[in-house]
């Protein structure tokens, strides 16, 4: 009940953010039900029906393998959700934990945050590139690499926010009540970080898509046969004039989804504790 009410209050009067939310819901539905709705097998190759223009039955046309782009786009929603959520989970679990513990245990923090500093000095895509070359191209590795890239910023952000919360009077009060480290960290500090973390998660989700698309473009992202929007763009990019639909549809899907996620993140950011607003970069 309370959650519903607060979601409503976050998005009240924000038409664009509402539209964004609806779009993301579509993406989520497509991701879940793609095997049911997709009219074709996204991997089915048809040398005869190559590069067909959009129409019936190929709503988004076909690519140079003769695969149905609409079905691939639907399955691509899966990758979008998977990469987004995966990167968020990796970033928050590793970076979040490092940041929180570093802020709370000052001495440990000295060491850990130094390490984070070192990693932060590597521009994100460069690090992802090197890591991806190091590992094999796979969905899992792409998720891990993008997650690790955002783990550093997440660690920084959580470090700052935890530090602020650590100085809060209610933490002092908990200490005076005799609460232990674990209880203070996870019962008193963490719940207060949930909403800023959600905002951060939404931005990671959005940027992970762009990062994954860039990796796909450079040929170091998801395995090329995987139907993802980034792969669709990158694999078919030479057809930009020959078969423009192959770039317009997946491009629009990426832009719409990243835009929506940003809109949603932005709306949520405006509703969180103003103390934490500065900590979350976003767009």
């Amino acid at each position, binding site marked *: 009940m309370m959650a519903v009410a607060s979601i409503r209050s976050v998005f009240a009067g924000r038409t664009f953010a509402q539209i964004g939310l609806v779009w993301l819901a579509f993406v989520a539905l497509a991701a879940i039900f793609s095997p049911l709705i997709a009219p074709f097998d996204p991997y089915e190759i048809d040398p005869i029906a190559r590069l067909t223009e959009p129409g019936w039955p190929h709503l988004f046309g076909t690519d140079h393998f003769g695969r149905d782009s609409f079905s691939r786009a639907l399955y691509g929603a899966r990758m979008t959700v998977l990469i987004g959520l995966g990167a968020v989970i990796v970033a928050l679990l590793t970076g979040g934990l490092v940041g929180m513990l570093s802020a709370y245990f000052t001495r440990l923090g000295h060491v850990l945050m130094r390490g984070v500093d070192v990693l932060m000095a590597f521009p994100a895509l460069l690090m992802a590139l090197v890591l991806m070359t190091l590992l094999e191209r796979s969905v899992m590795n792409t998720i891990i690499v993008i997650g690790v890239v955002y783990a550093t910023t997440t660690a920084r952000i959580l470090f700052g926010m935890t530090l602020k919360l650590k100085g*809060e009077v209610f933490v002092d*009060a*908990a200490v005076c*009540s005799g609460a232990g480290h674990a209880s203070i960290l996870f019962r*008193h500090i963490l719940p207060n970080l949930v909403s800023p973390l959600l905002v951060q998660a939404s931005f990671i989700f959005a940027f992970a898509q762009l990062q994954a698309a860039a990796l796909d473009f450079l040929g170091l992202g998801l395995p090329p046969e995987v139907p993802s929007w980034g792969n669709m763009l990158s694999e078919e990019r030479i057809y930009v004039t020959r078969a423009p639909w192959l770039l317009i549809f997946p491009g629009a899907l990426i832009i719409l989804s990243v835009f929506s996620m940003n809109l949603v993140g932005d709306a949520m950011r405006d509703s969180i504790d103003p103390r934490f607003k500065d900590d979350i970069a976003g767009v």
Partner: protein
Amino acid sequence: MSAQPLLDVRDLKVHFRTRGRTVRAVDGVSFDIAPGEVLGLVGESGCGKSTVGRALTQLERATAGQALFEGQDILSMSRRQFLPLRRHIQMIFQDPYASLNPRLTVAQTLSEPLFIHKIARSRKDAQARIAETLDLVGLGPEAMTRYPHEFSGGQRQRIGIARVMILEPKLVIADEAVSALDVSIQAQVLNLIKKLQRDSGMAMLFISHDLGVVRHISDRVAVMSAGKIVETGDKSAIFEAPQDAYTRRLLDSIPRIMPLKETS
């Protein structure tokens, strides 16, 4: 006053190192508090009075000195050793908005110390105690399931007081406990604190910058300035015949409402 003080602070020093400089926040403070006694610690901002309170609850580590609580030096204790004593040394904080975790209900906030100190054996037991304590501070049992933001400032401070009282401590450190409250609410809370103190017989270190409030609640008063105590004494002595120049200046600065005549 009894011969054996409840708390005996000897030459307490708290120094902070920031950017290579040492700030002597508390620089050799000594006082004692007898059981059931209220000591007012008064001083201007930055004089170190709050740091004294924080050092006594180990929120800040003391640099030097001793603080004997029932004969045991609490300053030299580890966090773990100090844990059982926390029950007896409790703190009321200044800002009732900030001192309650916004994500926890009143019942959750109040049950935490009960379970940590194993006072409540069961959820039911805890519920009963919480209701009882809330009643003590003038709140109904319906408050239990609510979150801090649903209360007014005065009510929140009552919750803060309830969290302390639920442990039945021997010593309460009240750090500017009523400063953030509006005058009319401040009066209610002051009355409540005074009543609870008298009823339970707990001792109290009442830290405040407000001389009126300190006079109202304390038995004895210590005046602090620049990390040191400049004068300690019975409250009437301090307020009627201050010895120290600083104390005198402090008292002189207070605006007074002169033409006070009762008409009714």
